[in-house]
């Protein structure tokens, strides 16, 4: 029986080995080649690419910028998504499914289309700057082609994932506990702080992990709304691989992104265990 169960795993394992692990190992191996001028790739194994990368402050600032921007987006998605998720969770059963569909519906539209939507809203001649000008602000701040545009658009794009994760983690929330706290004299904010929030930690952790990982790896939105002024790991990998033809550096940066994911997953595991 046990042997049969192991045999059933073989197809999935084989597919993963072939289409995930093997290319990943190849990618890692590529980072141990030297980049030759004009886009060539050295033939011998070398630590040169990694040495140059780690010695260059620009790549450290890129890593820091990617992590900070992704954390800001994750927190923004959490703050915007949490009240919506709680509202959906507490909605009467007959409305809940409809509200959930409404929350997930943006995922049916491509991220490219939604990003262009934000360009229409936040662009210099867009809805929001026009409104600000109409209200008397002569030179409103630029809202696109900088960090603001990227954070706003990615927060909106990642919110459905955050809401779904929060809803999945709200399983332990029990209205009886809230009523008990209230009957013992706790004010609504205290009920939220002492009862609701601690019980929703699993959902918060899951949503934050998902939003952070997706934010670090997102390329289209920073590329369309960053205006070349928001250097992130994903956009740099594209530039190095496609424009500069520096495949070894692109491969090394991809390995760094994987390492960031690894750190995020480890943190998630530890926090989840501590919370449990």
């Amino acid at each position: 029986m046990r042997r049969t169960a192991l045999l059933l795993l073989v197809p999935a394992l084989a597919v993963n080995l072939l289409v995930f692990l093997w290319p990943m190992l190849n990618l890692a191996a590529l980072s141990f080649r030297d980049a030759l001028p004009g886009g060539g790739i050295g033939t011998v194994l070398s630590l040169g690419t990694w040495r140059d990368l780690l010695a260059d402050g620009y790549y450290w600032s890129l890593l820091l910028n990617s992590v900070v921007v992704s954390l800001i987006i994750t927190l923004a998605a959490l703050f915007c998504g949490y009240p919506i998720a709680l509202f959906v969770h507490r909605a009467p059963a007959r409305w809940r499914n409809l509200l959930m569909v409404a929350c997930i519906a943006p995922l049916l539209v491509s991220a490219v289309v939604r990003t262009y939507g934000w360009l229409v809203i936040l662009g210099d001649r867009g809805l929001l700057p026009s409104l600000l000008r109409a209200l008397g602000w002569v030179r409103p701040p630029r809202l696109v082609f900088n960090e603001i545009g990227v954070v706003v658009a990615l927060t909106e794009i990642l919110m459905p994932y955050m809401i779904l994760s929060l809803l999945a983690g709200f399983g332990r929330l029990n209205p009886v506990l809230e009523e008990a706290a209230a009957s013992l004299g706790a004010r609504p904010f205290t009920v939220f702080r002492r009862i609701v929030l601690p019980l929703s930690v699993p959902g918060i952790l899951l949503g934050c992990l998902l939003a952070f990982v997706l934010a670090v790896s997102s390329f289209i939105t920073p590329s369309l709304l960053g205006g070349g002024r928001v250097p992130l790991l994903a956009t740099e990998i594209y530039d190095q691989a496609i424009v500069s033809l520096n495949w070894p550096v692109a491969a090394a940066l991809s390995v760094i992104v994987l390492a960031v994911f690894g750190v995020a997953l480890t943190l998630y595991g530890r926090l989840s265990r501590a919370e449990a």
Partner: protein
Amino acid sequence: MTPTRRRLLAAPLALPLAAPFIRRAVAARSITFAAYSGIFQENYEPAVVEAFRRAHPDIEVTYYPIANSAQALGLVRAQKAAPQIDVVMMDVSVAKTGTDEGLFEPLPKGSLPVLDELTPKAFIEGVAGPAVLFDNYVLLYSPPQVKPAPTSWKALWDPAYDGKIAVQAAPDIVGIALTLIANKVFGGGDYHQSVAAGIDAIAQMAPRVLTWDPKPDAYTFLIDGTAALGVGWNARGQTYARQSQGKLGVAIPDEGSLFQINTINLVKGSRETDAAKAFISYALGTAAQKAFTERMFYGPVNTKAEISPEALARTAATPERLSRMLDVDWIAISKMRDAITDQWRRKILRAR
């Protein structure tokens, strides 16, 4: 085989399904040609590839669209053991990398009769294939917003266009070319020695730039009125300008410009070398060079191609413009590219 009612019905139904293969059987030889996608393909396919198909019905050509030269190099690299692409068009500096990696068959002068008709500038040392099309760097402007039409690159430094400039930053070739132009315009001297003057000038302009990464491209930003000034390439600029109904203008400023070179290369290991060479010869021949220059305003490499004066006036290939062109060694630039990009990151893209 007895003719039954079912078989009689099946025959006409099977015929359309088999048609593509029947056509392939007629075209005894088949080659794949990789070149730029989008507006380039829309124009090159009817002007050159279709004409070649008509002239050589025994050779089937499949146009494989690529986003840029780097993608083409990646494909040819990946297919090194069993090439699926026979002929590839790409930028000269990327072609040099491919040549160094042994991906292309050298086509030196004398290897094809048509090569004798090409300008000497079509043969670049260290690159396997000859140049097939020249393009030149231009200042793009929005005629409704920029009056009169700009005549100097210095229009990009005019404070009147604050937040209205769209430029693709380095490492893209558009940003690298702007560095060289700015270096020339602001008295930087020989770019082989230093491009510091160009970098400093662009850093001054940087806070007024709307975006360093216009998507899909700078032409679109100008046509939809988001930007008033930009930089780009003549052929695409002229083609979009013609379609834009006065929303996009193309200027070759008085200080001059620079050429970009597209090469055509025969992939090593192609199973249809003769057919591929026939296609390359056709693309370099007078008929194709004339047809495509008059359609999309790339500079021709074939000196015997008789281009109409109207089309020639829209390229940089006129004697007075040629005299003002900055002679750029793109092979040398490809070695400086990382250093220039580094300067962009530190001094230009951070300026707010």
